[in-house]
């Protein structure tokens, strides 16, 4: 009996450890991976997600702020759309024996209506002073913090914005702001920033609602990416979410610096070089960091759709399409070109008439 006792103890300990491990496996796991260099398709997918929101903002401006033209406001709009983080989360599950996917797209911050209203209807930002002694105008009263609404009102506004989003459907859905309610996800306010408006949080809340409404079954896998580092409170919320709904979560989040991730090695090997504060390919001059590449791609989206030039704006009777910061005379329209060309928007391609050739 005395010989058997240690063996029994080992067997019992093994059983206890195994049972504990199997319980942990059943509750799901959370893995977060930091991405520095642009690899795979993460940037491509986040860029595609961002495009949905830029398109929606264009539709909103076309409807409500078509005649606004102050350059300083457009600058604020560009910044707001470019710097808001985005998240794209894919929920993989099996339904009736067939694999299915539902993709949740989210952009951080308040609803587009709120963002546009604070930019186009609120005070403008202070202008650059000509000299240290120059008097500050009324614009200096601009408050950097936009007017904030209660979360419930913000959620209602965000839902009302649905009509501006035309690219979503059954498989790809938008994750709006959701009011606090029956949820295992608790958002914290950290440094005056409500994490409820983080894109990954919005996406998780939307998935949770779908799980509760039985739109999708539990026990699936969640994969995706976020354009900025996931906050600690969101990470904790993910663990609770994973445990409650038995969902494995694996996310990539972009880290905006190559320090400690082979920066010196890349530069010393001659593969990369630093251009201002960007790490670029030594041969092609292309940014190597995923966050830099995404930033540039989103700037391009905004330039194509939301810039005054893209919207056919005029400023002091001079169309933005003809404005240039190059030093030199501005090309004036010829007499033969007519006088009514002060706001040429992008024209659709019209096929030529084969008969007349016009």
């Amino acid at each position, binding site marked *: 009996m005395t010989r058997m006792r240690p063996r029994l103890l080992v067997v019992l300990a093994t059983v206890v450890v195994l049972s504990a491990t199997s319980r942990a496996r059943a509750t799901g796991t959370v893995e977060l991976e930091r991405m520095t260099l642009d690899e795979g398709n993460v940037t491509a997918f986040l860029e595609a997600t961002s495009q949905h929101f830029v398109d929606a903002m264009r539709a909103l401006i076309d409807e409500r702020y078509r005649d606004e033209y102050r350059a300083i406001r457009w600058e604020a709009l560009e910044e707001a759309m470019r710097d808001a983080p985005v998240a794209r989360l894919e929920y993989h599950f099996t339904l009736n024996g067939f694999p299915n996917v539902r993709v949740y797209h989210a952009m951080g911050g308040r609803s587009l209506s709120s963002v546009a209203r604070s930019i186009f209807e609120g005070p403008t930002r202070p202008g650059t002073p000509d000299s240290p002694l120059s008097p500050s105008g009324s614009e200096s009263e601009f408050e950097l913090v936009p007017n904030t609404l209660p979360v419930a009102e913000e959620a209602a506004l965000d839902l009302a914005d649905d009509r501006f989003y035309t690219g979503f459907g059954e498989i790809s859905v938008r994750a709006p702001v959701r009011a606090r309610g029956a949820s295992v996800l608790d958002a914290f306010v950290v440094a005056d920033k409500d994490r409820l408006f983080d894109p990954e949080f919005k996406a998780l809340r939307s998935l949770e609602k779908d799980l509760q409404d039985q739109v999708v079954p539990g026990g699936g896998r969640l994969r995706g990416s976020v354009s900025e580092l996931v906050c600690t409170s969101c990470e904790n919320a993910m663990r609770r979410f994973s445990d409650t709904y038995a969902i494995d979560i694996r996310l990539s989040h972009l880290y905006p610096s190559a320090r400690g991730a082979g920066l010196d090695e890349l530069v010393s090997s001659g593969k990369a070089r630093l251009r201002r504060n960007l790490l670029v390919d030594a041969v092609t001059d*292309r940014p190597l960091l995923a966050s830099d590449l995404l930033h540039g791609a989103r700037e391009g989206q905004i330039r194509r759709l939301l810039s005054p030039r893209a919207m056919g704006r005029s400023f002091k009777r001079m169309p933005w399409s003809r404005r240039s910061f190059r030093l030199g005379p501005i090309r004036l329209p010829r007499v033969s070109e007519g006088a009514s060309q002060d706001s040429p928007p992008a024209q659709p391609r019209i096929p030529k008439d084969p008969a007349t050739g016009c």
Partner: protein
Amino acid sequence: MVDLTGFRHSTRAATYAVAMQILRQQLIETDAARQASLGIDKDVFHRVMKAAYLDQVATYDMHYLTTLVQHRLIHWQVGGRATAGSRALPTAFRVARVAAAYRDAQGYFSEYPCTPGAMPRAGSAGTGAEGDERPLCFVAATDRAIHRWYVDESDRQARWVPEREHDGMQRLAGFVSAMLVLLDLAPFIEMFEAVVADDLVTARVFTPAEADMAAERADGLFCPFPE
């Protein structure tokens, strides 16, 4: 991919084919443990390869493949190398080349536009100029010429509207209405015969008795004028 979409949508098939090439290359070059976190989905590749019909390819898979190509169309990376080590084509030209290969695989009603020496065949190869509808000799054409052709071709394929399929009742109704039209035409044949017979009598080829027989058949088709 063209076996899924059919030649009618070969330009779309070319986009998906290039996306599948990109995805396959990523699967080969990336460590399997990191594929999920980098957004490289091997399941998409296998599902599309296994599909027997276009309906079997999920919308998600289509979106996935489209995003891969879209990203590379916008952000062309200069200095890349193809799998064979040669200079990689820009993605737009690559898609156009695949679409051109599909066009060649479809075959031509008239003469093949290239000679066996891969040169444009005089008279049958198109010039790519506006109004010249003849097919290009793709193997000899420049990337830009093929891309121009691709843009026109994809536009043409996008505008194509399929014919409505008719069910059995609609086909029967069509047949009956065609028969009724033929029955309406029958009296005109009789009238025509009577007029021709009259002419033949004038030319003394027919006797008046034979012409009367033809006229009687035509008269039976009309109501006589009330006397």
